[in-house]
């Protein structure tokens, strides 16, 4: 955790975005994570995505659990309210916040211990409820803050820094999210900001439960030979299904690819996902075949990345609850309190 505030010096050449904010306005406090930590690259991608989306910082709420990854919301979007909650329970806190005010953007940041071990249940249930959120897992396969224990996403056969071999099966959160009906599922790599940033932008624009698993090597405890979450291993085994360009609503779409190379998916808010295909037979709108691809590549020891599944017409929890348009936390007394006349009628029915 940090108590260091960054000096607010703006380079005169920093480009303002559509709202007049520069990238610096989306930064947070100075990170206290280890030098070279993949998580800091993810924070940088979140900052870049918010900047490029012209996001008013206060319209986003960032929530996390406990762990290295869950500390990161202090290091980005310093003008957004943040909530570092309890271990493995960010999904329920985010769900409650979302029900209370449907008008904000909710960014959940978690780790593999936080979401796949202690918090697997809450992860699963928030996804299956269709909470409108962007849920990022910074996945390093290891407990960093407690110095190097295996997490539930560690692959069997993977070796810890101390030389211990993991025998337990790995939980693939992408597979779980697909099974449970997440309407936007992606995987990326903290070492590939060019791939990650548009995925975050698309996830934020997506209505429904958007999940991004970001492999983020732990430079201290899980970046050695024998680990399947090291920079080298992920670079060598990265099987990208597609490259995404995120096109904002109303932006002009120029087609500079040959037929069959590009797929355009229009989301609920009018944003367009332009997918350059890298695997010719991969269809990211087909959930069942996405699950098949995932299992196939996994069996080959490959890490499938890219936008793996999207349902552009997904519904969310508020649709299911049929809640009013006005956020619940802004309803006034006269919209909430039925009054004495209604109470008199109730009294009469109880005699």
């Amino acid at each position, binding site marked *: *955790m*940090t*108590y260091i505030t960054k000096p607010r010096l703006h380079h005169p050449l920093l480009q303002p975005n559509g709202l007049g904010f520069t990238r610096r306005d989306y930064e947070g406090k100075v990170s206290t994570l280890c030098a070279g930590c993949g998580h800091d690259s993810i924070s940088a991608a979140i900052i870049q995505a918010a900047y490029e989306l012209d996001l*008013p*910082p*206060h*319209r986003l*709420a960032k*929530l996390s659990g406990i762990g290295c990854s869950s500390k990161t919301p*202090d290091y980005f979007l*310093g*003008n*957004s*309210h*943040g*909530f*570092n*909650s*309890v271990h493995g*329970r960010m*999904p*329920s*806190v*985010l*769900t*409650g*916040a979302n*029900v*209370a*005010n449907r*008008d*904000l953007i909710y960014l959940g940041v978690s780790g593999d211990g936080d979401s796949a071990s202690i918090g697997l*249940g*809450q992860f*699963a*249930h928030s996804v299956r*409820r269709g909470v409108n959120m962007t849920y990022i897992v910074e996945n390093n396969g290891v407990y960093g803050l407690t110095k190097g224990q295996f997490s539930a996403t560690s692959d069997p056969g993977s070796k810890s820094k101390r030389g211990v071999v993991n025998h337990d099966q790995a939980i693939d959160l992408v597979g779980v999210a697909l099974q449970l009906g997440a309407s936007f599922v992606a995987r990326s790599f903290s070492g590939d900001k060019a791939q990650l940033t548009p995925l975050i932008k698309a996830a934020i624009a997506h209505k429904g439960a958007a999940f991004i698993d970001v492999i983020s090597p732990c430079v201290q405890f899980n970046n050695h030979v024998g680990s399947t979450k090291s920079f080298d291993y992920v670079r060598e085994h990265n099987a990208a299904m597609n490259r995404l360009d995120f096109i904002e609503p109303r932006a002009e779409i120029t087609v500079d690819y040959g037929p069959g190379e590009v797929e355009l998916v229009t989301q609920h808010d009018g944003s367009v996902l332009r997918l350059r295909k890298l695997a010719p037979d991969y269809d990211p709108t087909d959930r069942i075949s996405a699950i098949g691809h995932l299992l196939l590549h996994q069996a080959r020891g490959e890490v499938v990345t890219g936008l793996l599944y999207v349902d552009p017409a997904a519904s969310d*929890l*508020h649709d299911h*609850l*049929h*809640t*009013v*348009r006005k956020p*619940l*936390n802004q*309803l006034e*007394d006269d*919209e*909430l*309190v*039925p*009054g*004495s006349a*209604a*109470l008199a009628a*109730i*009294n009469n029915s*109880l*005699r």
Partner: protein
Amino acid sequence: MTLSAVNDFVVKFANVNGSGSASANGMFAKSILRMGVPVAARNIFPSNIQGLPTWYEVRISEAGHLGRRGGVDLMVAMNPQTWDQDVASIEPGGYLFYDSTKPMLASKFRTDIEVLGLPLTAICNAAYTDPRQRQLFKNIIYVGALAWLLGIEDNVLETLVREEFSSKPKLIDANLQALALGRDEAAARLAPIGLKMRRSDAVGDRIYVEGNTAAALGAVYGGATVCAWYPITPSTSLAEAFMAHCAELRTDPATGEARYGIIQAEDEIASIGIVVGAGWNGARAFTCTSGPGISLMQEFVGLSYFAEIPAVIFDVQRGGPSTGMPTRTQQSDILLAAYASHGDTKHPLLFPEDPAECFDFGALAFDLADRLQTTIFVMLDLDIGMNEWLCRPFAWDDSRRLDRGKVMTHEELEAGKDFGRYLDVDGDGIAYRTLPGVHPERGAYFTRGTSRDPYARYSEEGSVYVANMERLLAKFETAKSLIPAPVARPAKRRTPHGVIYFGSTTPAMHESLEILDAQGIHVDGLRVRGFPFNNEVMAFIEAHETVFVVEQNRDAQLRTLVMVEGGVDPAKLVSVLGYDGSPITARFITDEISRRIHGAARTHAPLVAE
């Protein structure tokens, strides 16, 4: 000698659960009310859906004693499984009503009671061919027979049948026929008994309602918009009542959309997590649960305490520990709730005495949660929550506004007002908070369960941590003035004896105080309505030599709380503990208190009966 009483006796029904007896028994109880006589009916049921014993105890009391009295004057024994204990529980001179279709050995009866046999099965078999009808109408037939025996007016029951089946009109005639059949058979085969109902006017404008329904309605009036819950007896009906009330009272008339969000969560941890998330974001949110759920929620309750997030928990207490007696009542979560979570924590508790107060406190809890920015526990129990109680009608002052507590607005931030999330600017220990989304450049802060300074910046500095913990104590001191004050019930004479009680014990306690008073044993009563205890509670203890603390748990939990928080000499606080899972009775409390006082009287000043 058989018992004789008018409008003052106890009828108990022994049934098999799942046999359809509940609605017939409920109709019987309601018919007493419609005769203008106060009634208290309690379900004593198993954690099971079909086949196990269940009882329904109806206290009829023109004087308005609505607690359990103890003992049974008329037993309606419809369950062969529990026959022996049911017959044994009848008061000498009391009555046993049973199905006499099958002959029973004389040894199965008592000679000091009057036996009323009616061949219910034979009557049903003759009147109906469908097995389910035979079962269901048997219940209505015994209600008809009892009505004749006790003198309940025919038209009262007939009106109740019409109301009960208003949505299924074709059942009305069949039920009216069954009632008449029971009445006619009783008239032909039995003689009137010493227990009598006579029309009165002692009910007034009171209503008859379950505490869970009332608490849920209180939550609606208290402005709750988010409810997250997980099914658990005996709190489930609170969430279900909130759904029903909201559908009725909180649906946007123009669009049909919901001004509320209710989530059945995957467990109690997620339930309280959703509540904390919604509270953080400025919506009024609650969960309802029972002891096992409170155990699971501990970590979040600590977060709510330390990060200062409003939350409301309705704890409908049941018999613990562990799974305990899930369908029986207790007041055994007091300490669990008061000090929930690790580290140094304390939480305000409210103790409603009946459904009317469940409504009041159900609404008040949300104002307190926003004002104090912490978790408020509303401590019901199964007896209040799941039984219908006769109580004063719900009341609401239309000029009342929801108290949202200290929330700094966009305008205040814009004007440059200093915002420190944990800064005590008013000296009451309560800091201002902001809601997410309030202002593009000001007022954002990072909420965390870790230590931080008044401006919400992370800090492991010892002095900063201590200052914050001391401020939380100051806030708890402020809470004392906001928690409903205790209600005194002074004895007729000046007395060195006092008694403290709370929650569902109240009606039995009040009856006991009347009985004691009539015996010349004077005891001042004080009904505690919440925690932290305000100064009146401590002054009451100070003013008496001996203070009885009556509660429905084994370990004298409220007494512990009084001792610890008030620094009271343990020798001064004498426990009266009824915790067998059935609601405490007036006779039990009376026996316990008079035994202790007379015991003491032998060595000190003797008590003289009037």
